[in-house]
């Protein structure tokens, strides 16, 4: 049995060149590789590979990389100059910036996250995602500026992990090889955008105040039909338009994930925009007014943290479903994700919050592993005719 040959310097250089090449130049990477494999002699190969690296650098540097590096540098500068008092929070936010920058870089390359699908829905979803990412970063910086009354950065890691999770799965969904087509993306996003505000109005405002829907006719209970009906409509529309059950399920899950994210965003937005409307949740002897206000906000946020957790569960399942499963281990991981994800609502129904959170965490890990194992076995064969 022959052992696999070790990759030499020339091969490494060529691999680097094909990796650096922009996604739309993928065919040229294959061309370089084919030429390279036809060459005899290490010197010729090395010189050829060096030339390929130069070509790739010229292609990438003049386009996407400049924009990417500029954006990343601007984000890092914003964090460093934003006046975040706590070094811990600053480090956390910087790490989020680096994670998002890495994802954005990978989003332009052939792989799990890229390149972007050719449909308008995929492009629009990504564009909105980048706007939301920028806004989230800005709000996080502003919210953590100056001295903090409570432990600095409370809730920042949870928000960051959730955000990175959403970002990764959204990129996978909108990548060219994703199983989620334009109808699925559009109907799912539409359902989430309709269901999210309706759901937000139905949950107790700031955890203890009456729901906003209370002031509507019939106490706004009809909004529940929207919350349930919108993802259902997305599912039906996708099933009818695409004939694919999987896409229909993905559309409904995507609608639910967008809905959950919106509920959390609206809840946190309410804290930031209307700080004076914060209900008094903690006792009067909890501390100074400023401390009580900060504690009230922390307590009121629980409802919206729950929204984030349920959203993460849906995103984990989406991550497990959104690409073709070719390998056996992917199929096994996908089945495990679905089983564990189903346990979470059962545990919550049994009022076992710890078990429910554990199930969500396990589903997230399994869902991401499923997603990771879909590449490169699920990669399309290279186009052999231009």
């Amino acid at each position, binding site marked *: 049995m022959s052992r696999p040959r070790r990759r030499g310097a020339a091969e490494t250089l060529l691999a680097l060149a094909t990796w650096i090449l922009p996604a739309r130049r993928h065919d040229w990477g294959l061309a370089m590789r*084919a030429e390279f494999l036809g060459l005899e002699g290490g010197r010729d190969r090395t010189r050829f590979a060096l*030339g390929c690296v130069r070509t790739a650098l010229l292609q990438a540097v003049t386009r996407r990389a400049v924009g990417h590096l500029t954006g990343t540098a601007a984000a890092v500068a914003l964090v460093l100059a934003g006046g975040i008092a706590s070094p811990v929070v600053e480090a956390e936010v910087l790490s989020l910036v680096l994670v998002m920058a890495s994802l954005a870089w990978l989003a332009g390359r052939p792989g799990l996250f890229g390149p972007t699908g050719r449909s308008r829905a995929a492009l629009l979803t990504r564009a909105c995602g980048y706007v939301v990412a920028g806004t989230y970063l800005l709000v996080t910086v502003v919210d953590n500026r100056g001295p903090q009354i409570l432990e600095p950065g409370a809730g920042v890691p949870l928000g960051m992990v959730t955000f990175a999770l959403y970002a990764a799965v959204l990129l996978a969904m909108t990548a060219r090889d994703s199983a989620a087509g334009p109808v699925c993306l559009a109907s799912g996003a539409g359902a989430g955008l309709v269901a999210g505000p309706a759901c937000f109005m139905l949950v107790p405002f700031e955890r203890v105040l009456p729901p906003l829907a209370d002031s509507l006719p019939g106490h706004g209970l009809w909004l529940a039909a929207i919350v349930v009906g919108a993802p259902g409509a997305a599912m039906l529309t996708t099933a009818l338009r695409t004939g694919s059950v999987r896409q229909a399920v993905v559309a409904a899950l995507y609608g639910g994930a967008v809905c959950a994210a919106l509920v959390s965003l609206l809840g946190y937005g309410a804290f930031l925009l209307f700080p004076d409307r914060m209900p008094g949740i903690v006792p009067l002897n909890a501390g100074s007014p400023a401390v009580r206000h900060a504690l009230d906000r922390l307590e009121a946020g629980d409802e919206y943290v729950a929204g984030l957790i349920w959203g993460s569960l849906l995103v984990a399942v989406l991550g497990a479903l959104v690409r073709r499963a070719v390998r056996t281990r992917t199929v096994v991981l996908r089945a495990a994700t679905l089983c564990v994800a189903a346990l979470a609502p059962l545990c919550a129904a049994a009022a076992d919050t710890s078990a429910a959170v554990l199930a969500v965490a396990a589903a997230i890990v399994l869902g991401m592993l499923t997603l990771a194992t879909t590449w490169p076995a699920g990669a399309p064969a290279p186009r052999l005719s231009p």
Partner: protein
Amino acid sequence: MTRTRRPSPQTVAVLRALAADPSAWRYGYELGRQVGLKAGSLYPILIRLADREMLETSWEPDPPQGRPPRHLYRLTGAGRLLAAEVTPEPDGIGAQGEPRSAW
């Protein structure tokens, strides 16, 4: 708007080599050796020409076993016109020696 700037001497050399037998499919390494260009100079030229639809590309139909198909190139109609426009004199770059290499 189409750029009307005269191509670089390296591009002219590639155009001339391809125009010598316009119906023949050529592959990159062979073409690079003929015109004295290394990969770092040749591929950007080929990519640019293909982007401007001066170059037609294809893949080798029957590659030898164990080697992936090579990318093949030949001039399109527009490419032949450009080649005719920019290579009227025989004492061009090829006659003066090898064009400047990338590395």
